[in-house]
C-alpha cells in the first residue's frame, strides 16, 4: 500500500507519460472498434450476437480506462477499484441469468 510517509509522490505516473499522440492512436482504435461492432451486428449469430457486442464494448471500455483515464501508469490501488465495480456487475447479471436460463427446465418451476 502506498506509504504516506514517503516524500510527496511526484506525479505518480511520471515514469510512463501519456502524450497527445497516444490519445489520437487510442481514439482511432475506438472508432475502428465501433465500426467492427456495427459490422458484427450485421451477421445473425443468434445469442452470440450479444456476447460479441459486449466483448467489443468491453475492449473499448478497457482502452478508455487505461489511456484516457490514466489508469495505465497509476498505482495498483486504482487498478483494483476500476476493475472491482465491473466484477460486481458480472455477479449481478450472473445471478439473474442463472435463475432465468434454468426456469423452464423443471415443469412449473
Amino acid at each position, binding site marked *: 500500500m502506498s506509504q504516506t510517509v514517503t516524500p510527496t509522490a511526484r506525479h505518480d505516473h511520471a515514469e510512463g507519460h501519456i502524450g497527445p499522440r497516444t490519445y489520437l492512436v487510442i481514439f482511432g482504435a475506438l472508432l475502428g472498434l465501433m465500426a467492427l461492432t456495427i459490422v458484427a451486428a450485421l451477421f445473425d449469430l443468434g445469442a452470440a450476437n450479444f456476447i460479441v457486442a459486449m466483448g467489443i464494448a468491453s475492449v473499448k471500455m478497457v482502452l478508455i480506462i487505461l489511456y484516457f483515464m490514466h489508469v495505465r501508469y497509476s498505482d495498483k490501488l486504482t487498478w483494483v477499484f476500476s476493475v472491482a465495480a465491473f466484477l460486481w456487475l458480472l455477479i449481478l447479471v450472473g*445471478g439473474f441469468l442463472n435463475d432465468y436460463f434454468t426456469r423452464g427446465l423443471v415443469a412449473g*418451476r
Partner: protein
Amino acid sequence: MSATVEEPRGGGGDGEYRGERKNYLTDGYGILSWLLTTDHKRIGLLYMVSITIFFFVGGAAATLIRLELMTPSGDIVQAETYNKLFTLHGVAMTFFFLIPSIPAVFGNFLVPLMIGAKDLAFPKLNLLSWYLYTIGGVLAVVSLLLGGVDTGWTFYVPYSTMFSNSAVIPAAMGAFVVGFSSILTGLNFIVTIHKMRAPGMTWFRMPLFIWAHYATSLIMILGTPVVSITLLLLALERVFRVGIFDPALGGDPILFQHLFWFYSHPAVYIMILPGMGVISEIVTCFSRRPVFGYRFMAGAVLAIAIFGFVVWGHHMFVSGQSMYGGMVFSFLSFVVAIPSAVKVFNWTATLYKGSFSFDTPMLYALGFIGLFTIGGLTGLFLASLATDVHMHDTYFVVAHFHYIMVGATVMAYLGAVHFWWPKMTGKMYPELWGKLSALLVFVGFNLTFFPQFVLGYLGMPRRYYQYPPEFQVLNVMSTAGASILAVGYLLPLIYLTISLWFERDAGPNPWDASGLEWETTSPPPKFNFDETPVVTGGPYVYPLGEPEGQDERLPVEPQPLPAGRS
C-alpha cells in the same frame, strides 16, 4: 498501540478554555457551528442524535405490534394500521437506524482517531451525507404523515406499485435518498483508510474496528446503488403505470426481488460487520489480551463482505425462482456462514487466559457473542432448501434476523456507546445502571425472540394481524419479553443523558485500552492529535500476550513503552 505522543507543550496548542485545553465540543458554539461543521466527531454526534430518534420511532411501532399480537384476533388496531405499523418498524429500523448506526456514529467519530488522521478524506461530503440522511428521514416522516405505507419494508411488486393505496412514493424516495448518505459515508471511509493512515500503521497494524468498517464501506458503495435504481424503477412504475416489474405490463415481479435482495442481503452485512469490529475492540480491552488470530479475523471480515454479494437468492427459494438457481444460492449461502463462525471461535479463544473485568461494555460484548452464535446458526436452516420451504416467511425468519440485528448489532451498538462514551463526552457513565441495562436487554431479548423460533416452526406466518388461537401463549411470552426489552433500551437514554452533567470526568484512557484514540485527550481536540503519532507496533498492546503486528519488518526502531502502562 505503542505510539510516541509527547505531552502537549504548555500553551503551544490551541487557546486555553476555562483553564483546560479546547476540545472539539468547546471549539465553536451556536447552532451553526454544529449544522455547518465538517469535523468528523461532531458529524458523528449529529448522526447519534438522528438515529436515536428513529430508533425510538421504530421502537414505538414495535411496541404497538407486540401489544396487538397478544391476542389472536385484532383488538388494538385495525388490519391496515397494523400493516402500516410493521412497515414503519421495518423501514425506520433498517434504513434509518441499523445501517447507519455504528458506521455513521462510531465510524465517523473513530476511524480518523484510530488511524491517526486529522479528519476523514472528504469532510464536506461527510456533512452532505448527514444532510442526505436528514432529507431521507423527512421524506419517511412525510410518508408517515400522509397515512403511512403498508407494503412492508421490502416494497414487493405488484402490491407496492399497483395495489397499495398508501404513501409508497415518499417512503421509497426516503430510502432512495438515505441510500446516497450511506454511499458517501462508505466512500469517505475507504479513501481515508487507504490514504490517510498515520506513519508506521501498515494494514496489519490497524485495529479490527477499522478492518470491519473498510469491509462495510465496500458493501455500501457496491450494493447501495442497485437498490437506488430499483426504488427509482418502482416509483416510475407506480406513478406512470409503465414499467418492467408488473406482470400486467409483461414484467416479472421476481426480477424486482432479485434486484432488491442483491442489495438487501449485503445490507444485513452492513448492519453486522461494524458490530463485529466493536466487539473485537471491547473483548480485547476487557480481557487485557490481544485478539486471537488477528489475520484470520481481518480476512473473515473481508470474506463476509465479498461473499455477501453472491447469496441473495436464499430470500427467494419459494418465490418462483428456478430450482437450479435455488441450489446454487443455497450452496453459496452455506459458504458465507463459515467466516462468521470463524470470528465467533476467535473471540472465544481471545477469552482464554485473559483477565476479565465485567464492565458494561464487556457484558454487552459477551451477550453479543452468545446471541450472534444463535442468530448465525439459525441462518443455516434458512439457507438449506428443504427447511426454508417450510420456514420461509414465518416467525422463524423474524426470530433469526432479530437475533442478528437486535441481539448482535444493537448490543454491539450499546456496548460501543458505553465503551467510547468517556472518549466522546469526557464523562463516565454510571456503572451500576449500565450493568442493569445490559442484563435487562439480554433477558428481555431472549424472552421476546426465542418463542418466535418455536412459533416459526409451527408455521405462524409473518406480518399476520390475526393468528390461530393455539399460537397465543407463545405470543404472550414474546410480548412480555418485549416490555422488558423496552425498559432495557430506555434506561441508557436516561442515565447517559444525565451523565453529561452529573457524572465524574473520565481521563484520556479510563479503560487503560490500547488504541490511538486513547492516546489523545477525551474529548479529543479539534484536529485529534497535536502531533501525528508514529505507530511502531501491533494493534492490541495488552500485557497478556504479544500482538501479531509486532514483528512487522518495518525498520522503525522499537520505542520504549510509555511508563505507567500496566
